[in-house]
């Protein structure tokens, strides 16, 4: 009898101790943040019904913050956490009958980091790319020779403006449907500056219907400055740059109407486009205009290629302004981009080979968390 009681107690204690050993709980500062979060981690058997997390600032009074499952394993506490303050945490193990079986405690101090170590690979790549670009800019400034391949669409710009002047028809420039925070819009507007200068020199007319109000202000300024630079401030018409609507299909309906009524000699579609790209390009084709398009949206490039005379694909749109200016400074940056491309190709190939060999360190290193 005594032996059996002792044996039962032993088994109970053993299983309790095993149970106790199987749960680990740790609170630590959440890495790579601004000191406003603490990371809680636990390992617990999946058979546990529920876990309750509570927090205290004085290690006496605990306030519940979350009910979690054993499966979750991690919880980021980012509610009212102050940088530099210590917080105590309690993990309560709850059974089927909603009773607390055990408590576990841990404490941590939130702190802000000055460098996000998860982004080290991004920093290295950015430094490489920026260095390549800056090197070639300096190389170009020192008189180094640079070869840049021809981009037909841009070489045709002057011809298109000349054609418009001869025919007495206007030019339509569409800077995309996105706002100024999209780099494609800015690239398009950069080209507008060059184009508007030529339009001013040739005494032609330009229509710039825009989809966003911020783009309206910027485009107007650009066209005005271009006329000024060409020595034709009197020829600038402020109503040549106008706003239609923010709505995608309302805008394309408006631009189509302009193209069909004005019958331009040349259409330029340079910026970010979505589904409306083919509608614009086909309507422009119908009007008989020469069409030059450029976008970095991979899904829209095929439509422009099919329907336009010339298409700037992806990076050609961003290179256009540098190409048109022909300034060594700017052309140097194009060369730097090409070096960047070479670096990426090497890394890609190395990654593929390493992955095939089962070595994952490069993939893990380049993975941004």
């Amino acid at each position, binding site marked *: 009898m005594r032996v059996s009681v002792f044996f039962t107690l032993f088994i109970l204690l053993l299983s309790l101790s095993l149970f106790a050993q199987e749960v680990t709980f740790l609170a630590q500062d959440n890495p790579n943040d601004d000191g406003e979060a603490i990371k809680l981690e636990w390992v617990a058997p999946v058979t546990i019904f529920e876990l309750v997390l509570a927090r205290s600032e004085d290690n006496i009074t605990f306030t519940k913050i*979350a*009910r*979690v*499952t054993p*499966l*979750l394993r991690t*919880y980021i506490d980012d509610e009212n956490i102050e940088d530099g303050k210590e917080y105590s945490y309690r993990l309560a193990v709850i059974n089927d009958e909603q009773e607390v079986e055990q408590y576990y405690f841990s404490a941590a101090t939130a702190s802000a980091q000055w460098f996000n170590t998860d982004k080290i690979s991004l920093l290295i790549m950015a430094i490489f790319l920026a260095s390549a670009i800056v090197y070639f800019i300096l190389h170009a400034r020192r008189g180094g020779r640079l070869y840049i391949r021809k981009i037909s669409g841009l070489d045709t710009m002057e011809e298109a403006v000349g054609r418009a002047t001869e025919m007495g028809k206007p030019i339509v420039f569409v800077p995309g449907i996105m706002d100024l925070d999209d780099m494609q819009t800015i690239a398009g507007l950069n080209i507008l500056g060059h184009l508007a200068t030529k339009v001013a020199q040739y005494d032609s007319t330009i229509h710039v219907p825009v989809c966003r109000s911020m783009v309206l202000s910027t485009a107007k300024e650009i066209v005005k400055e271009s006329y000024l630079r060409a020595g034709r401030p009197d020829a600038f018409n402020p109503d040549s740059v106008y706003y239609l609507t923010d709505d*995608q299909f309302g805008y394309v309906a408006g631009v189509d109407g302009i193209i069909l009524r004005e019958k331009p000699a040349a259409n330029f579609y340079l910026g970010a486009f979505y*589904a409306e790209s083919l509608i614009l390009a086909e309507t422009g084709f*119908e009007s008989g205009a020469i069409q030059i398009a450029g976008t970095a949206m991979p*899904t829209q490039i095929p439509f422009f290629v099919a329907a336009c005379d010339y298409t700037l694909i992806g990076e050609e749109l961003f290179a256009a302004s540098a190409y048109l200016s022909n300034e060594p400074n700017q052309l140097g940056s194009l060369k730097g981009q090409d070096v960047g491309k070479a670096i990426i190709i090497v890394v890609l190939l190395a990654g593929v080979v390493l992955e095939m060999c089962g070595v994952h360190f490069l993939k893990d290193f380049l993975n941004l968390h």
Partner: protein
Amino acid sequence: MKIFERFLTIDRRIIFLLIFIGVALPLIFMITFNLEVTENVQSVYELLQEMEPGTRILISFDYDPSTKPEIQPMAIALLQQAFTNRLRVITTALWPMGVQMCNEAYETVSAEYPDIEYGIDFINLGYKSGGMVTINHMAKDFRSTFPADAGGVPIDDFPIMKGIKNFDKIGCMISLSAGDPGLKQWVMIVHDTFNKPVAGGTTAVQAPTMLPYVNEQRQLIGLLGGLKGAAEFELLVKKPGFATKGMGAQSIAHLIIILFIVIGNIGYFVTRKQQDTIKSKKP
């Protein structure tokens, strides 16, 4: 030979007319073709088929009216399968117009299932901005993320929400997604953290980008891609709808386009041959 030259310069109004006829007739007369169900669509169907009646599933309506023709038929077919199998459906939206899409889908399907009760078998929790941040909050505390349904009624009043604190008690998650935020974010949280099955429906354009997630790790159980995916799913649930009609129209339209491409190329090759012959005859 002039006819071949004409092949090169067909008036586009003729093309438009034929496309119009090719799209309209199948829609009006319900002309359909045999459809084979692909593996990815079959997987989504089997995922729901194997669930016990009463299981709660989460469907997120992450699209807007511009992609409604492709994705709404998927939503309707999914609800039909869920209600047929007496699954309980909790819906959310990460896109503002997704709420309206959800309401329209529910209105369409609930007419076929009069026994289905709002609050017991179905609930619309409405839209929440934030994308990934919202999904993270749902994972931590579902009830504080959605304290009330789309109509403003506290979720504690609805039996379907009883016991839901995170994704633990959710049988599976399906995201009907037209872009970002959408399916990718759901996979990252619901599958990668909670290990719950996730399936999705996307537009045809987006489907290739999501296919890599249908892998050995089963990050996505299956994927409905575009109108074809929706039509295949309608075939499986045996309730042909807009997608099935649309596939007939899409097939005919594609055939017409291919026909014109062939005509154009015939004209091109014949006239080029003629020109080459003329050039070779010149002294």
